[in-house]
């Protein structure tokens, strides 16, 4: 196996983590990773020697994610099917570790995809602002405002979830 493929193989766990944070559902996230790997293979020649495989792959995956989001947006209400919602939102059991963990995963899913991607890129994946802006294809200022708004939104959602939880406890 050539070096490029070996390098890509080594990035799969990181790609899976990023995909999971974007899409939550495990199978859907792995579908996204698979699409990303397939596209990467086709474009192997575009990958310049010396360029970080991680950045290259994250860029490919982000484009796939955004393309799909745009398609869905154009269809608008196609997304209103309850079946889709329940399917897409159901968290696989093995993923549920604790209430706190589930709450933050829920909250992350509830913020806009743009903000989610920016926040995850920096806060979980550890990219610098410059790297993340480059991967997401936005100016650094846009990235920063997405991160700031994303964090604030996440905080509000978590507070709401905590409030609901305490109400439930009081009711018992």
């Amino acid at each position, binding site marked *: *196996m050539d070096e490029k*493929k070996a390098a*890509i*193989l080594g990035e*799969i*766990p*990181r790609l*899976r*983590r990023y995909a*999971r944070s974007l*899409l939550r*559902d495990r*199978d*859907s*996230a*792995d*579908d996204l990773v*698979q699409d990303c*790997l*397939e596209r990467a*293979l086709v474009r192997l020649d575009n990958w310049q020697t010396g360029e970080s495989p991680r950045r290259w792959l994250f860029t490919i995956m982000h484009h796939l994610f955004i393309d*799909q*989001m745009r398609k869905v*947006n154009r*269809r608008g*209400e*196609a*997304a*209103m*099917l*309850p*079946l*889709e*919602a329940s*399917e*897409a*939102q159901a968290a696989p059991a093995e993923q549920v570790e604790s*209430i706190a*963990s*589930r*709450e*933050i*995963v*829920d909250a992350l*899913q*509830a913020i*806009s995809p743009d903000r989610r991607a920016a926040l995850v890129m920096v*806060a*979980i994946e550890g990219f*610098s*602002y410059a790297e993340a802006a480059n991967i997401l294809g936005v100016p650094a200022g846009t990235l*920063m405002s997405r*991160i*700031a708004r994303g*964090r604030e939104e996440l*905080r509000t959602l978590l507070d*709401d979830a905590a*409030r*609901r939880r305490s109400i*439930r406890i009081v009711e018992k």
Partner: protein
Amino acid sequence: MSRRDFSERDIHMALDGELPGDERTAYEAWLEANAEMKTKSARYAADRAALRAAFNGVLSEPVPVRLSRVMLGEAPVVRAAASRSRWWLAAAAAAILVIGGAGGYLAGIGRVGLENTAEDQLAEEAIAAHVIYAAEKRHAVEVPASDRDHLQSWLSNQVGLKLVAPDLAAQGFQLVGGRLLPAGQGKAAMLLYEDDKGERISLFVTAESAAKAKGTYGSEEDGPEAVYWLDKGYGCAVVGSLPRERLAAVAKSAYGQLVAGLES
């Protein structure tokens, strides 16, 4: 050492390792002197730790064979069409949030919170009531639309909300009447509407809700679907077997009028 005013923006930069090293000391001093900002910074750091903890497990999961196979150049695993489109569905659900965020009311199919939620219960009760009463010819309602003022004041008193029956004529629906129903620990008002073809929809309103949520819900295939929303102090669902777009339009109109009524 640079002398400049810091702001909330610097909290993010510091947290993300983007604050220039020579500003660090001044930043720390600013944070110490600013309790509100210090709390915010600590909170963001805690949320980030929780985020990392929630997703770190993925790194140690074994890589699914179908993914490593792609790279090992073996014959690709053919995914069924249904499976291939699955992540698209997840994306679709997420997209609703974008539409909602832009000012739409259909903000949240993505539920924030715990399992078996209040909104599930609300939607299920609303659908159950609709299935029973919308099919009734003679006893669909307790108070007919001809007695609209009494209907509104009676249901408002019983449910504990200022209830105004929405005018859905623009969507082709006329009020048939309403009835009182049990809901959870309390009561719910059901308002029944009908169009000129006899198609019925119902509005289900309760005063019981501590949560904020919005979305759609269907209990079974081909059954009626509920568009619901919950806010602090009330929960509403619009139920019907209409094409989605029409149900959404009706729900949007009903929502606007109900909220305006509640807050008037």
